């Protein structure tokens, strides 16, 4: 399998997942802003920080009110992280790997992009924002399911899985980071506020129901942290995504030593995390460290299979 093709499939999956997560995030965040008392320390600006593209935002927007932030998150085609950019990139990558992907896969991605462009291209943002975002999430899921159900699970598919899970892990940690916000709300009981915030974190990852089902206890920060970081069964928990990536790399791909080592290191970091302690201090730094490790894992994957920069890979057979 050509490295370029592997790389494009990987990015197709990453961008699709990113689009889905962005839609989910904006939707839940919008609800949360309606729900939390004013001045509590959570604002629209934090959504920009979660997306990781604050530099672009600061250069191009004067205020960080709802309108600007939503535009930035959904329809700003100059921003790397916007929903529309993600869908455009997913489409570009898939267009050039069409021969490896079931043709319905390409058709759905193409239609999804055209749908989003039409909705977001108008001067004003969609009035039915929630409905629109729900549709995006659903259609992304549909594509994921279509690939899982109709594409051979050979090397090509493994790169789709790796891309999807790495992007998912990345977003889950970004969401967890929201929980590290210091809440200030005179007159309201801190614990109640905290619980409400963490409930939104769960919701933004579609994790609330599964949390209820499996943890079965009241929402508390350390329990949510354990669920989102260490649970091996919930598909959006970091522990689960890392397990998926490890299995793709270990079972199906050649020359896998370096990338595998990077995943194992991440798995250990997550397993060893002391959630009780993290909750009260150092959560933000911990998340920062995870982000760096994700970056390193990407470098290992890219170097081994995409750009063949690493010594082992370049040797001709």
């Amino acid at each position, binding site marked *: 399998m*050509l490295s370029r093709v592997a790389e494009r499939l990987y990015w197709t999956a990453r961008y699709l997942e990113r689009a889905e997560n962005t839609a989910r995030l904006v939707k839940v965040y919008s609800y949360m802003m309606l729900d939390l008392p004013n001045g509590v320390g959570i604002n629209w600006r934090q959504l920009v920080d979660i997306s990781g593209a604050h530099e672009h935002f600061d250069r191009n927007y004067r205020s960080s009110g709802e309108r600007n932030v939503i535009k930035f998150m959904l329809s700003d085609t100059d921003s790397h992280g916007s929903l529309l950019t993600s869908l455009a990139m997913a489409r570009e990558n898939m267009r050039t790997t069409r021969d490896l992907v079931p043709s319905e896969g390409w058709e759905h991605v193409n239609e999804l992009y055209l749908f989003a462009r039409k909705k977001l291209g108008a001067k004003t943002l969609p009035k039915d924002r929630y409905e629109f975002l729900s549709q995006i999430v659903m259609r992304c899921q549909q594509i994921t399911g279509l690939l899982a159900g109709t594409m051979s699970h050979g090397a090509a598919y493994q790169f789709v899985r790796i891309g999807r899970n790495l992007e998912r892990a990345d977003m889950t940690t970004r969401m967890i980071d929201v929980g590290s916000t210091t809440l200030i709300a005179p007159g309201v009981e801190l614990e109640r506020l905290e619980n409400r915030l963490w409930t939104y974190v769960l919701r933004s990852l579609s994790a609330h129901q599964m949390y209820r089902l499996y943890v079965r206890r009241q929402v508390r920060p350390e329990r949510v942290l354990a669920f989102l970081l260490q649970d091996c069964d919930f598909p959006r928990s970091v522990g689960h995504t890392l397990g998926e990536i490890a299995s793709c790399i270990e079972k199906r791909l*050649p*020359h896998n030593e370096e990338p595998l080592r990077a995943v194992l290191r991440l798995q250990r970091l997550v397993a060893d995390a002391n959630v009780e302690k993290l909750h009260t201090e150092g959560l933000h730094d911990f998340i920062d460290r995870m982000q760096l490790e994700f970056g390193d894992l990407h470098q290992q994957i890219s170097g081994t*299979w995409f750009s*063949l920069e690493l010594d082992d890979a370049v040797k*001709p*057979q």
Partner: protein
Amino acid sequence: MEIDWKSYDSGEFYDEMISSPGNPRRAARAIAGYLQRLSAKQLGRRQNAADLAIAEMGVTFTVYSEGTNIDRTWPFDIIPRIIPQTEWSGIEEGLEQRMTALNMFIHDIYNDQNILKDGIVPEKLITGSKSFLPQCIGASPRYNVWAHICGSDLVRDSDGTVYVLEDNLRVPSGVSYMIENRGITKRVFPELFRKHRILPVDDYPAHLFDMLASLSPRPLDYPEIVVMTPGIYNSAYFEHAFLAQQMGAELVEGGDLVVNDDDCVYMKTIDGLQRVDVIYRRVNDEFLDPEAFREDSVLGVRGLLRAWRAGNVALANAPGAGVADDKVIYTYVPEVIKYYLDQDPLLPNVPSYRCENKLQRDYVLANLATLVVKPANESGGYGMLVGPHASAAERNKFAGLIKHNPRNYIAQPALKLSTAPTICGQHVEPRHLDLRPFILQSDRTYVTAGGLTRVALRKGSLVVNSSQGGGSKDTWIVETGGN
């Protein structure tokens, strides 16, 4: 839209199907009768079925100027173009002869240059040609064959003579349409295939694969063959992907390949570097290797020419093969055939005027209104003047161009291109067409049974290029023996 051949008249033009109103040619008699028996509704339904099949298969052709809408379907006319096999075998022989001579010519030009020393072709024509690549001097590809895949354009004049209009020895395209067109006709007119003996065309990818494999520098059972494309924005990307798929070869871009210190070519795979033996490249010479040709090329592979010259990889077609499809060199092909094979050409050239010759140039300048003027180094119908259809301003512009750079132009009388019945809205009308057969050559030669028939869909138009509003037809080589 019921067809009545009695009211079908191609006038002064030779028609491929109907010799005079109401009289189909012998090889086309059965199909003409069949079409006439179809009701308007039936005929319309079949054209619709064909259009649907095309959309489904994704037969698309990119037109650069369309910006982001890069996929556009290419019109297909369901009435096939019929050629009797007895006539075709003569054409086939002529094409084989022509290719053999052209390959001997290219090899001679890059090695001994006997034909120049003997004064048959003027030396300055070669050294002054953009398509002569000094970087290729002294190379000797396997079997001394340089142009492995050729698409020659044939046209028929009003007296029925078939001429070679041009040879495409660089990266000729269109063969995938030939194959897909046949697939569509089989779906639309299955019953006709039972009644006729029509030579198949879908074995082309297998022949292409065998030819490419025969070029492999390593004696392997499974040489690594790749199709190299400039990428998704190239007008023929669909075809590159199609041929790669049909041959089971990898479709690569320049960035997928690398030439190592051992002067061998490798492709970057998730298993590491894998040696490549044969490259069917659909990237033009000048972009092939930034080390040897255009430095700014991002489509090519650094060191590719080096690897090819070292004999570690086969390139089809070999770089520099285009020296023989320059339109000025074209005018010398009859002499070239005579020189190398000591034979008379079986297929005639269109009579041509060389603008570099003063007498001929003066004639051309005085008769622009009746001539077709072509630049030496363009393809796809770009940059040419069709005198009878041009405005005075366009003719003046070309007069200037010719005077400025006479070496770059030839002129030919405007041929009365033959026609064939074509569905145009609610009627069947004659439309002009040409034919591009594909010839494969290594130690053996293979010619497709027929080729790609391109048809000018605009009434009276002679321009059949897909980039300029042309369409295509299926081409049937029909056995008539015994009837």
